[in-house]
């Protein structure tokens, strides 16, 4: 099933926002990827089916791909296949290519941010942020300096929060730590699995604006799984809508890039039209489920 790129939606841009690097392979490419669990048993389940898409490696900017879909349709499976995390990885059939090469294992070039933050409880904020550098063998002084810099960038107070443990932080602060810890490694791809799903709306808007700002700085390609349509339209350059399980890409929208704060942009008419349109598609999918 080929995904239809819809170009007549409100608030769309019909062209990619920058030319692809000439001669470079796409940064992420799925070729008819299918993932089944429990193959050969009575509990065989197909998580995603024939997923095909290409995300080009753009010159000097990364694309922001938001993935929407009814619950249980395999959104996370797509992310975990790119990351190389078991048990979703490896795919049952098809090819997952990263820079034109098959994905073989997780690596720091593909950072991941989880809904439950997964901050290491035994490490202070600064040691959490410096974890990746520590694994690389960066000397202590250097990595502490870099970590402090990133603590500032995610708008935590280095003086007050740097030596706190995760249990002393709120959910939003913990997610800031998790984002800093991922971005400090300058990944080329950032995979975010409903990162703001557990946050209250106000914190969520702040985090969205923060993410947009940081993403511009690191110029990475972002895959962002969410349930929140407004969030996906605000953050995404492109929005994928997955079908009911087994998931496959049904629609692909190009939407306007976030150039104003979330609270402002989300109030505008074209923005809301797009949101309602996508929401209608999703509602139809949820209804058709059972």
């Amino acid at each position, binding site marked *: 099933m080929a995904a239809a790129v819809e170009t007549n939606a409100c608030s769309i841009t019909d062209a990619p926002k920058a030319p692809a690097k000439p001669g470079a392979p796409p940064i992420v490419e799925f070729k008819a990827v299918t993932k089944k669990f429990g193959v050969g048993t009575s509990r065989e389940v197909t998580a995603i089916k024939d997923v095909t898409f290409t995300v080009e490696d753009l010159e000097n900017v990364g694309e922001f791909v938001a993935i929407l879909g009814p619950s249980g349709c395999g959104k996370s499976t797509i992310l975990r296949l790119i990351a190389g995390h078991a048990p979703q990885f490896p795919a049952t059939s098809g090819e997952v290519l990263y820079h034109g090469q098959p994905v073989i294992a997780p690596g*720091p070039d593909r950072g991941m941010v989880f809904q439950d933050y997964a901050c290491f409880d035994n490490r202070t904020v600064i040691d959490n942020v410096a974890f990746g550098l520590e694994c690389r063998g960066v000397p202590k002084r250097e990595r502490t300096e870099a970590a402090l810099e990133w603590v500032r960038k995610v708008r935590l107070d280095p003086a007050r929060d740097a030596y706190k443990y995760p249990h002393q932080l709120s959910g939003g602060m913990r997610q800031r730590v998790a984002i800093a810890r991922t971005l400090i490694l300058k990944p080329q791809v950032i995979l975010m699995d409903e990162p703001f799903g557990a946050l209250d709306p106000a914190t969520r808007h702040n985090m969205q604006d923060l993410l947009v700002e940081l993403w511009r700085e690191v110029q990475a390609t972002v895959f962002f799984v969410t349930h929140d349509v407004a969030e996906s339209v605000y953050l995404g350059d492109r929005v994928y809508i997955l079908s009911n399980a087994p998931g496959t890409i049904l629609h692909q929208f190009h939407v306007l890039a976030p150039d104003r704060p979330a609270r402002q942009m989300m109030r505008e008419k074209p923005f809301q039209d797009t949101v309602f349109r996508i929401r209608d598609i999703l509602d139809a999918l949820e209804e058709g489920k059972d």
Partner: protein
Amino acid sequence: MREYFKRWVTIRERPGWLEGANASILCIALVLAVWYVLTAGEHAEDRIIDPITLPSVGDTLEKFPDLWFDRAVARSAAWSLGRVLGGFTLAAAIGVPLGVLAASFLRLGAFLKPISIFGRNIPIAALIPLTLMWFGLGETQKVMFIFLASVAFVFFDSSGAVQGVPNSYLDAAYTLGAKYSARKGLIGAAWVGLTYAAVLTLAYYFLSRAPGPNDVELRASWIRWFWGMGFFGFALGFALWFPILAFQPIRKVLLPLALPDIVNSLRLLFGLAFGYIMLAEVINAEYGLGAIINLSQRQGPREHIYLSLILIALLAFAIDRGIIALQRRLFPYRQVGEH
């Protein structure tokens, strides 16, 4: 008053520090009162329970100086504690790393499972005759008894603690670049190996010089055994810790995240092991709290049995509190349960 009783029947209503302590004191007072009533009376005929079965509170307390000075209960407590510490350290030195490995490499876990099940279900009392046959009547037997009685539980709990670390931490570690680093593993494991070798040879040295019947010293090949212990200790420490230290996901994520739970289970198991040692000390021990109880039962005064039991409980409580305090310092990010 009415308010106070209402608090007693409110589910999960947490008492303040003072109120909780008062409730505990009330319990002790109640036990003492019952004891007092049951044994009140000048002559045996006046008492509800005769003095042979249960001595009175006063008689028991009167015998304390005797226990402290003539029987040297403090020295015996030190001996008991030393034996438990020796056997339990050995059990932790093997059980903890092995448990961490078994929970990280699940095929190894499946391989060790039969031994773990066997070790946890063996009747502790049956280990006494077995260890007597294997290690003779001396101190080695007592240390090895504690080791054998506790190692399978230490292994099982450590493995469970590591299994309890959610997968998302591991996934996060991988995407942050945690990897296998043989160099770090080699250096670290070599140091651990040397530590194991030093501790084992020292333990062997002290065990072979401990008072009491001593089969170890009878061996002509003492020096060969001494070096053998050293090499064995190094190999053991190196083999157990190399994989843990070489794999960053284990060294930096699984082990530190599981450590508070591991230490907590060690605290509980140490309490059990401290109870088990009395079993071994009933047989051919010159010193030890178990030996005192055994001696008092045969030669009297029987009051010493009750006093010893109270002392054991107090000592165990103090040790437990000590370890809890240590846990709070080591793991400030983790609450230790109050019991």
